């Protein structure tokens, strides 16, 4: 990367960084791991910046792989007991932190019950608003698999006590708030 490329890279991250961090948080279903995955995605993008045609697609592919690696690294560490519960505070820069802080633990806990592929498909399909074909291309699977996995994963989520509560109760509330936002 020369100076000019560095500036272009910084500009890309300034524009897309927040969305990438949110993607990483959903994909890992964990705030701390999400930050790790986000950081590593930037490192890999920086390393190949001059050769990447589509940085958005590159980041999503790479992030998916990183999340799998992180999960594996975690799984293979010696078992440990969490001694203190981690607290998840909202960021005061957001307009409405209470909603995020209330929804987040429930949503992330529900997402954690899915497989990595199911989670990646739901997040790319709904949060990232990608079409079935785009998701299939990003994850290297067939569009049919995307469709069937998404509907299976949704069916599974509906069985989760926490999330089904959210789906039922906050339905109108959420729709209304978003429309006014």
């Amino acid at each position, binding site marked *: 990367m020369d100076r000019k490329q560095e500036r272009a890279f910084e500009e890309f991250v300034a524009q897309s960084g927040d969305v990438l961090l949110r993607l990483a948080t959903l994909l890992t279903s964990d705030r701390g791991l999400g930050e790790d995955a986000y950081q590593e995605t930037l490192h890999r993008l920086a390393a190949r910046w001059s050769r990447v045609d589509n940085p958005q697609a590159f980041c999503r592919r790479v992030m998916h792989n990183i999340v799998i690696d992180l999960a594996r690294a975690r799984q293979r560490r010696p078992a440990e007991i969490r001694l203190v519960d981690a607290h998840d*505070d909202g960021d005061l820069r957001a307009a409405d932190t209470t909603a995020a802080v209330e929804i987040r633990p429930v949503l992330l806990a529900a997402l954690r019950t899915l497989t990595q592929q199911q989670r990646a498909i739901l997040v790319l399909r709904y949060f990232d608003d990608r079409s079935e074909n785009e998701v299939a291309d990003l994850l290297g699977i067939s569009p049919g698999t995307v469709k069937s996995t998404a509907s299976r994963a949704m069916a599974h989520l509906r069985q989760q006590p926490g999330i089904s509560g959210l789906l039922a109760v906050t339905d109108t509330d959420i729709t209304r708030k978003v429309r006014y936002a």
Partner: protein
Amino acid sequence: MPDIDEDIMRQLMTRATEDLFAPRAAVAQAVRRQRRHRARVRVTAVAGTAAAAGLAAGVLLPGAGGGARPAASGGAAPGAVSSGPGGSGSVRLTAAQRELFSLSAAAAATPRGDGRYVVLTEQTTSIDSGGPSGAVKETGPKTNVIDTITGGGVTYQGIIATNGHGRQTPPTVLKAANGNSPTRAELDAWPTGTAALRSALLTQARQQQAQAQRFMDQKRRAMEKQLGKKFKAVPQPRISDNDLVFEQAADMLWQPDLSPALRSALYKVLAATPGVKVEAGTTDSSGRTATLISRPADSGGYTVKTYMNPRDGATLESAWTGPGSTFDEDLYLHIDYANAIPRNPYKG
């Protein structure tokens, strides 16, 4: 009404993360690391070629290249580690291999301690990144007492856990069940030939993977039964043989109670594993002279680092580092042997 659910899922995902802002420092760090990386690439490319050449050369002998110490005993003499095409009889050791053989010789010359119990005092830092202000950090001394006959033992903790909201004291005494640690007899059953040990380490790693797969399958079947639906099996990630061998060998070197022959052989296995980086004459985080052995996993994502004592080949410190952070760091303060279980040093 699948459409409504999908729309709500879209909203939930958006709302649940709308207060997350990317840290500014991450960009600058990525750029800086990239600059450093570019500066390093040329050096490692040359070193990598040399390592490959060293392995392909076939017969590796101790003492070649000037730096390695003479093998301390017959059992420690590094034999033929690998043979490949082009083994023309020329002897070439890379700098990394020389250091590993030197550690191997040092380990072979250091007798095992005397006593039934191994008393390990270590300093632990483990960071559990649970959230931005909630990252839990555990630091403090810990004394593990391992019974080398039963594999059981006891751990005394002087650890303090902190997060963004304050500190807590975890339980000070933990009992380990028999068989939690390998017994001396189990450790002594491992082969000490380089090729045999490598394949035994690989077998053990594959068994652990198969066990993880069975566990996942069990969980999946239980879920299918509960929900009356079929789920696709998630295949276990593919990990290269060299990744597995390095991790198993590094893990085993962490065991305090290895026989000199086994510790010595483990270093020879590392010398025959491509991609192992060795840095002699460095220091661990408490300032002791150490040889750093590390190897970034072929699949990326994390690096296992261990600091070795160049005088006896024992582990001083080990760390798991992953993207942007260190997961765990364990620092051995000292290793002693005893014939009775010592009292809790952190009590009172």
